[in-house]
């Protein structure tokens, strides 16, 4: 097996098939049942594209994004912490990922994860009301959102206004099916992008098929 670097702490593991892995920042426990690789003393965790939209974007040709060690990340829609655990790998022990999740049952797993990984800061709150966690979250270097709500674009803009440093990257996962089921998905993405144009430069838009159905990942830079 051979490692090919994508960017800091993210690698392709080249075997018969390529596998995306992140260099584990903490111990080598499996968080959600992913495979663990131990290569010359370093522990790598598989990043499964079917579970994580961010990983799917790498499989679909994303080859670099402005995220590195000791970054501060605001993560909206953390769910049970699948992707969050990999983000916490990438930013390392000196980074901070503020993970916002509103559903209590999902957040339980997130909190248990945060007890093991000290760079995860769980927040049980509604991303629609960023005022609630305004005091506890500092300005961030990356905003990642995956909330699958009808008004997710508005949520993104609101949070980016308050927390994202200007010139930094926002990653925005659009679930077209939760915005409108009857309209063509491409149409929806176009409309959402139009709303975002005022405050952001659109860098790239990635359709995540076949790893995630009806999902697109939009990468933006705040003006």
């Amino acid at each position: 097996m051979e490692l090919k670097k994508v960017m800091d702490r993210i690698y392709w593991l080249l075997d018969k098939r390529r596998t995306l892995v992140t260099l584990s920042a903490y111990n080598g426990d499996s968080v959600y049942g992913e495979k663990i690789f131990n290569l010359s003393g370093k522990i790598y965790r598989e990043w499964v594209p079917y579970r994580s939209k961010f990983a799917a974007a790498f499989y679909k040709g994303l080859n670099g994004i402005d995220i590195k060690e000791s970054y501060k990340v605001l993560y909206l829609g953390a769910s049970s912490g699948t992707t969050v655990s990999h983000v916490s790998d990438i930013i390392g022990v000196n980074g901070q990922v503020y993970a916002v999740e509103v559903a209590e049952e999902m957040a339980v797993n997130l909190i248990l994860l945060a007890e093991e990984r000290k760079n995860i800061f769980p927040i049980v709150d509604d991303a629609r009301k960023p005022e609630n966690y305004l005091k506890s979250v500092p300005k961030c270097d990356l905003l990642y959102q995956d909330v699958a709500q009808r008004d997710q674009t508005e949520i993104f803009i609101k949070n980016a206004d308050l927390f994202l440093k200007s010139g930094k990257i926002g990653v925005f996962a659009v679930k077209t099916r939760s915005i409108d089921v009857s309209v063509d998905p491409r149409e929806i993405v176009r409309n959402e992008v139009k709303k975002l144009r005022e405050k952001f430069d659109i860098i790239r838009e990635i359709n995540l098929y076949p790893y995630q159905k009806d999902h697109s990942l939009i990468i933006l830079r705040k003006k």
Partner: protein
Amino acid sequence: MDNKEFIERARKKIKEGLSIDDLIRKLIGFSDSLEKGENTVFEQLNDLYFLYYPEAANKLKERDKFIEILKESCERNSISKKLGIPPESMGFDLDDEELQLLSLSVNELSNISDLRRIVNDRLNTIIIKSYPNLSAVLGPEITARVIYLAGSSYSLLLMPSSKIQVLGAEKAMFAARKKKATPKYGVIYNHNLMVAAPDRLKGKVAKIISAYTSLAVKTDVLSKEDKSGKIMEKMLKDINKLKKANGT
């Protein structure tokens, strides 16, 4: 910077956020899957019994009756007395060990059945205690179902009564976007008053019931008083008025 403070706060928030609705939701899911398992096991067992004693298996197509009769013994002789059919059979003769296996399975099925009944009883008690008004209007089973579909009593409170009316008929509702007419009722179709109503009035009765459901859930969540008598009286009056106006 340490994340202990965040964890502490989040833990507290979850403790506050969980409510009786979550328990209700989980219990319904549990009861549903018990029933599903019960039915699958029953079908297979009935099929197995058909091999041994087809004459009896054909008469025991109902789950509860099947359990009741086969619980003590599976042998042809005792069953034939209970059902009043001759013990001679064209089925395949099974050994004692296989018969034992059969009765073990029937007992297990009966245990699952009992468990589901206990779960449902407990669920009903919880619902009548925490939602007196709502359970008076809908009955405990439908109340549980409605809360399950809405997610929580608070989100049920926020729903307009027209949405409560079609809760559980999402599939038909989506079909209505394209061609068909909108559905008239969802889970409230099993309500006692709905069953009693004539077919042509079912839609209107559903409308009245859902309107009072909306009222009852608001009373339960916001004022927490038991005004079920008053609400029921008004609802029955409305339904009688409707029936009179339509000549039944």
